[in-house]
């Protein structure tokens, strides 16, 4: 089975072609780089117009890369939410038009489901498994019981962890994106120099909170560099190391609670999947891996290319759903808010 996937839920426009033998036949993403930005980086493609302008050529590019005729496509998967409604509409309507024209089934995919199932595109991950989803917009712990069956154990009550990385990087004068910048600076930093709060640590449950940590870093920066000045490179490294150590502690603490809950159910092949852009951080990954190993869990982290927003995971979620005979009508709506699972 070969599925074309489209992703337009937030910043990026992407198209990919994936088959049921887990081969990524094509994977194309459009980035809008701007050189006139104060911090560099990627401009969010918030305008539906921006998605419209590039999506057609991205799909054509993906078909060329895969060297496939249209008749080889067995289904079309498009992200239908959650995200910005205008962008979602562009991808979903394009997906519907292709499905109708090719006379192939459409699957309307939840973007978070794409992340949740992405591990199965790169490894044997039998259900159920525990998922830690850590990205710019999300911070959740879920039990993935099967395709379409997700149980949320906890989520952030305020900021997502990737957002905390970006905002702290900005506060200490590091570049964008904040994740890699902090990881780099932290390598030479002394984490023990500063005492920062460890939000939610030691509390029962699996919820997260990062807003107070951000504010604590702001206070620290204020003390290190009176208004109008910037923190020195040494101070920035030390703050970055202290902040990253706190995030590692908190993720470990919350995930440990989740593992405890998960193991009660005696999963036959206990596995922890870590997905989302923040999974690219090697320090956090190492801490989570040692935690998983201590509890007898195997850890799977999809490669960075599949952890940031991409269409390959959407196409793969399409493969999974079509394999089970699930498809959506051409009237399927785009949904700005679409929680993967309730508590």
């Amino acid at each position, binding site marked *: 089975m070969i599925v074309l996937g489209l992703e337009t839920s*937030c910043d990026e426009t992407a198209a990919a072609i994936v088959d049921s033998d887990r081969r990524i036949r094509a994977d194309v993403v459009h980035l809008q780089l*701007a050189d006139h*930005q*104060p911090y560099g980086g990627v*401009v*969010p493609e*918030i*305008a*539906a*117009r921006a998605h419209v302008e590039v999506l057609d050529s991205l799909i054509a590019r993906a078909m060329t890369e895969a060297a496939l005729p249209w008749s080889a496509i067995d289904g079309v998967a498009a992200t239908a939410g*959650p*995200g*910005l*409604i*205008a962008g979602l509409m562009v991808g979903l309507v394009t997906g519907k038009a292709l499905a109708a024209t090719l006379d192939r089934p459409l699957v309307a995919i939840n973007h978070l489901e794409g992340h949740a199932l992405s591990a199965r595109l790169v490894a044997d991950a039998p259900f159920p498994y525990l998922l830690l989803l850590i*990205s*710019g*917009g999300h911070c959740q712990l879920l039990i993935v019981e099967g395709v379409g069956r997700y149980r949320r154990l906890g*989520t*952030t*009550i*305020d*900021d*997502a962890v*990737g*957002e905390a990385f970006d*905002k702290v990087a*900005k*506060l200490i004068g590091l570049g964008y994106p904040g994740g890699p910048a902090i990881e780099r600076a932290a390598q030479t930093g002394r984490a023990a120099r500063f005492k920062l709060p460890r939000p939610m640590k030691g509390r029962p449950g699996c919820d997260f909170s990062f*807003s107070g940590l*951000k*504010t604590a870093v*702001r206070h620290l920066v204020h003390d290190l560099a009176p208004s109008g000045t910037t923190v020195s490179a040494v101070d920035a490294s030390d703050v970055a190391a202290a902040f990253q150590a706190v995030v590692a502690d908190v993720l470990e603490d919350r995930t440990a609670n989740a593992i405890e809950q998960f193991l009660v159910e005696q999963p036959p092949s206990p596995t922890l999947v870590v997905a989302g852009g923040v999974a690219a951080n090697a320090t956090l990954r190492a801490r989570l891996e040692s935690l998983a190993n201590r509890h007898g869990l195997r850890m799977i982290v999809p490669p960075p290319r599949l952890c940031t927003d991409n269409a390959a995971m959407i196409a793969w979620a399409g493969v999974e759903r079509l394999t089970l005979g699930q498809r959506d009508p051409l009237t399927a709506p785009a949904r*700005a*808010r679409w929680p993967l699972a309730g508590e």
Partner: protein
Amino acid sequence: MSGPLTVIDLADLAATERLARRLAKALRPGDFIGLTGDLGAGKTTFARYVISAVSGRAEEVPSPTFNLVLVYAFPHLILWHVDLYRLRTPEEAYELGIDDALAEGVALVEWSERLGHFLPEDWLELRFEEAAGQTRRVHVRPHGRWIGRWRVLSDSL
């Protein structure tokens, strides 16, 4: 046209919640509430209290920074929680569809200054500033029709 500035000291989170509740009661479709102030000043916390007050229960209100817009559709009022932090130009911000928000409900907009000349004529601006510890100071400036409404509302605080 802009009205006079009111400076309010909020001693703790309970005081922030009280102000949010008072404002929530006055909200109606078409209202634009701009929330400004530095990172960590308390914009999202205030928005969370407003949204929970409108819904009548503790709502899950994640930060909208990455998603840019999160919509809360309650039976009696639709709230758009918007965050312009990641945007650079007023044109980008305008593309988010804030006009649509105002046509159907209330827009709670963080970093509203990034809208530049797309700011509406009638709006209420709350600029948050961190004082000591949990204390916050909020500078309230009404614009256009909000001048009269804020006068009434502030009398009842």
